[in-house]
């Protein structure tokens, strides 16, 4: 298949970027989206042009590094990560617009690469539990009800890719924080720091410049891990509880 690509090029954070148009021919529909970009970069290299910078790491949908806005949808038209999106999801002759995540809290580093350090700082504020390390405790010492464990597991699949922020009209990271709050809040080990976790993570979120949630739901539709909107309700409930406890 032959494609026309409109791609955001920006040499560095300080320079203003713009859209550039490229033609890629003989793309196999079995290629992943990133492999297609690899082919384009080989062509650019051969011509002596600067290849397009984009993030990727595991290329199997579990690390959260790759994230592109493809035709106005985070990670493209299929509910998966950009690396697991295949060219069979597009048609021959199609024009595909590729942009970086747009969020002032995720500044563009180069071309399609953004700095998601804001998520790291939010995690630093409470995306953990404090336990004494040393000999491993007996696994059955702390029983966890099955439904709680399942909910925690389901939302722990969040890979922090930032698609929720990219899709949100308000540029909010509420789905991300909601996933972390729910994941740790469902488990007994997460209880001691439950109140301070939600207050500190939300404060960092606001400080980073993410917008406020208005429950539109584009985040959950864009999430490659299908984190449901319920986690934002949980987030709100935990914050309300923290207020009641005097935080």
């Amino acid at each position, binding site marked *: 298949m032959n494609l026309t690509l409109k791609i955001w090029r920006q040499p560095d954070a300080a320079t203003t970027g713009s859209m550039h148009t490229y033609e890629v021919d003989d793309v196999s529909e079995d290629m992943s989206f990133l492999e297609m970009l690899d082919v384009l970069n080989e062509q650019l290299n051969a011509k002596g042009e600067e290849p397009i910078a984009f993030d990727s790491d595991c290329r199997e949908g579990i690390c959260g590094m790759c994230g592109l806005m493809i035709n106005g949808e985070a990670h493209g038209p299929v509910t998966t990560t950009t690396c697991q999106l295949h060219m069979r999801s597009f048609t021959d002759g199609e024009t595909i617009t590729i942009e970086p995540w747009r969020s002032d809290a995720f500044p563009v580093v180069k071309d399609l690469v953004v700095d998601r350090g804001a998520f790291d700082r939010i995690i630093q504020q409470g995306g953990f539990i404090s336990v004494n390390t040393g000999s491993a405790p007996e696994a059955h010492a702390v029983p966890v009800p099955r439904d709680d464990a399942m909910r925690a597991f389901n939302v722990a699949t969040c890979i922090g890719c930032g698609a929720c922020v990219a*899709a949100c009209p308000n540029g*909010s990271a509420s789905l991300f924080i909601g996933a972390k709050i729910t994941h740790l809040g469902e488990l007994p080990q997460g209880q001691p720091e439950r109140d301070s976790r939600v207050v500190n993570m939300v404060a960092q979120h606001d400080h980073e410049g993410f917008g406020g949630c208005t429950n539109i739901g584009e985040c959950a539709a864009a999430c490659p891990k299908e984190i449901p909107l319920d986690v934002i309700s949980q987030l709100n409930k935990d914050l309300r509880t923290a207020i009641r406890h005097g935080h």
Partner: protein
Amino acid sequence: MTGVAIQNSGTTLVKGARATQSTIFLKILMAVSGAVFIGFVLLHMYGNLRAFWGHDAYDAYARGLRTFGTPDLPFGGLLWIIRTVLIVALVVHVYAAAALWKRAKRARTIQYQVKKHTGAIFASRLMRWGGVTLLLFIIWHLLEFTIVKVQVNGGSPGSDRHDPYYLLVDSFNTWWLTVIYLVAMAMLGAHLHHGIWSATQTLGLTGSERTRKLAKRTAFTLAVVIAGGFSIVPIFVLFHVITKTS
């Protein structure tokens, strides 16, 4: 890849965080003040529907609102209590909305060239400008029926503009005024459709798939009932089902 310096945005870790200074607290204010309005529009709609019982029932209700609780309350006392609560709710609602709107604008200063809105209902993207429209409508509505009691058609012979029922019938016999009200009610319906669901989510009541679906269904039903309930009175006046003699 060489030559790519990771930019340190210089953002620091927050110390001494307070829950009441968060965006979620603003949303809670939004939800609680919105809930006051939901209660109000239901009560207001009930009052309007009394027009189907004719002149005397409608005016008796209007008088009843003023004489409620007398002599313990002064004449119009209940109305002023309600008005005070509504004004406070309005100030809170508008303040929280403006603060969140400003934040959202700052959160994405460079827009996408192409953006789809997968997963969003149209009403959810209409909240801010729809809210501004409703505010303008409410100002006109108060001028027309409460503060000035405007008779847009100059008033028909023998009708007193201080008689609520006559003012109602005279107003909605004017077709363009009825159209303005119907457009406003469509806006109100859209605002409630997303707003009621959003309030339940903000208050943390929708922590499962079942409760989320229930909240969305309830929001839609209430929006249709309220927007529809308000709309049928002007429509029935325009088509002369509700008349001055009924």
